[in-house]
């Protein structure tokens, strides 16, 4: 009997390597110092943001430069819920997801009228509107922002160390959840449709895929995840302001560079990209704005001369996939050849 399989030998190795890495990261509070934990948690949030952007732009072809709208919205929602309605901050992180998704529906109704690159700038306008509205909310500090009150912070955990462990594990769990959800989506029937849209939108459409509907679903799901990560980021920072919450550099430029350098349109790309990005950042942080300039140059070079990114080069050279995603037909019972 012929059947379709996802796994290859490299993906079986990949899954084992990932499992070991995740176990090591879950135990990080026992082997890492505070500095390491903070850095790792920050990396997790970037892996999540980049994975979500990759799903949006790399697969669904919705190139947004306005995802900071949802990062900031999630962050502000956390502060509003915790300060105004006494909601536990960790509960607020989970509430941010569905509310962000709900908000994405009318936003999509508006900006989906714009095509291609104009869609990109449209998303940016929406993020600007959110930023300007946030700076009008005086109970949340207006334009200068606000800190999470000490009472709320203390209520989370009795000691600072426990609170830091809590947010670390939350960041790890949330990132794994988002990453797994994306993989589950890509392995599903919708994933096949998404991959088809990635490869050729017109052909996908003419083969009966409802492209517009799938794009809307992906946009809303991405907003769900991005809002949760936004809430988490500002739970780590304990302070929010319109400029940090809706920063196009932090939540879009970096995220795009990470995805492009790692490999756009591949789930492994954002993970590799985040590692490269943070290594570069640790090495070049002293350079200040020159560092950003170099990041921009690296992104341009990769886009023009290695458009599939670091992971794309590896995957093509060795035929690897770290995760069981590609479908291939296995002929016969045990004897079937691959490809």
């Amino acid at each position: 009997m012929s059947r379709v399989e996802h796994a290859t030998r490299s993906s079986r190795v990949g899954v084992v390597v990932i499992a070991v890495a995740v176990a090591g990261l879950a135990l990080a509070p026992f082997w890492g110092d505070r500095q390491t934990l903070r850095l790792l948690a920050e990396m997790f949030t970037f892996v999540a943001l980049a994975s979500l952007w990759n799903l949006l732009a790399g697969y669904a072809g919705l190139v947004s430069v306005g995802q900071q709208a949802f990062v900031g919205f999630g962050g502000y929602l956390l502060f509003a819920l915790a300060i105004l309605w006494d909601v536990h901050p960790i509960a607020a992180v989970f509430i941010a997801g569905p509310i962000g998704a709900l908000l994405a529906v009318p936003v999509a109704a508006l900006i989906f009228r714009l095509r291609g690159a104009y869609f990109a700038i449209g998303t940016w306008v929406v993020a600007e509107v959110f930023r300007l509205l946030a700076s009008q909310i005086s109970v949340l500090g207006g334009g200068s922002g606000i800190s999470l009150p000490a009472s709320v912070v203390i209520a989370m955990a009795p000691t600072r160390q426990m609170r830091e462990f809590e947010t670390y594990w939350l960041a790890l769990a949330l990132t794994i959840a988002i990453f797994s959800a994306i993989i589950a989506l890509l392995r599903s029937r919708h994933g096949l449709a998404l991959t088809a849209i990635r490869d050729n939108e017109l052909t996908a459409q003419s083969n009966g895929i409802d492209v517009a509907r799938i794009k809307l679903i992906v946009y809303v799901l991405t907003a769900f995840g991005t809002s949760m990560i936004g809430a988490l980021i500002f739970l780590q920072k304990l302070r929010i302001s319109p400029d940090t919450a809706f920063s196009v550099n932090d939540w879009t430029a970096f995220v795009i560079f990470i995805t492009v350098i790692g490999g756009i349109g591949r789930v492994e790309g954002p993970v590799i990209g985040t590692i490269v990005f943070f290594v570069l950042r640790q090495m070049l942080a002293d350079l200040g704005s020159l560092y950003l300039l170099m990041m921009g140059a690296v992104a341009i070079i990769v886009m023009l001369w290695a458009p599939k990114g670091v992971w794309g080069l590896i995957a093509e050279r060795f035929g690897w996939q770290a995760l069981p995603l590609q479908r291939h037909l296995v002929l016969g019972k045990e004897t079937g050849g691959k490809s």
Partner: protein
Amino acid sequence: MQWFNVILQGVLIGGLYAMFAAGLSLIFGVMRLVNIAHGDLIVLAAYISLMVVQSLDVDPLTSLVFVVPAMAAIGYLLQRGLLNRTLGDDLLPPLLVTFGLSIIIQNGLLELFTADSRRLQAGPIEVETFQLAPGVWIGALPLIQFAVAVAVIAGFQGLFYRTALGRAFRATSDDQPVAQLMGLDTRHVFAMAMALSLAVIAIAGVFLAVRTNFDPAIGPARLIFGFEAVIIGGLGSMWGTLAGGIILGVAQAVGAQVDPGWQLLAGHLVFLAILAVRPQGLFPKVSG
């Protein structure tokens, strides 16, 4: 009378926004490229003008003699050397490369000129005003700026429909492969379009720098204003773009009059409202 004044100021600023938009509209029309670095190039022009003014001791408007050709040359080289490589069916490369360019320009300017905000001094003409009607005053500089904007739009219109270059632009815009078959060097045509776009950016940048303070970070907001003017006016229509700029300028001026915090927000909301009720813009070119 106060409201009349507010609206008049809005209209005059609208001319500047139309200049932000004209170059954006041109290159989108010719090669379907949206230049994310557009706003940062406006700021770059302002800094080049600042350097010219400081080193040659001329006034800002005279500096245009240097800034316009310099920016046009940058545009031509940028297109030939970099952006032509990104064009194709895929949307991502041009978007990401110009996004990277935007980050490079911003941080390069930050490195060279620091984050201090600057201003170009245009001398006595800055404060010169005259009375249009009792209680209605117009500044000489905003009026010149508006007149230049109208001239730029009219110039574009003439260029498109009266010159060989304009014909080449329209041909490539309609059908690139056929234009190529007819012997047009599209790489050169694209580079000329970018050069022209940056020449207008140069004018806009200098007027911006005379009107307000500027620093390396203000580029993206100018890109957004230009983009909004293009969409409000309707893609492909140059006079529509001028109208779009004016509508945006008036919306911002009225918003600012209600509450200073509402200046930018009012502009964005008008843009979103028009997108909601008339997504093709107010004066779209008949699409073919």
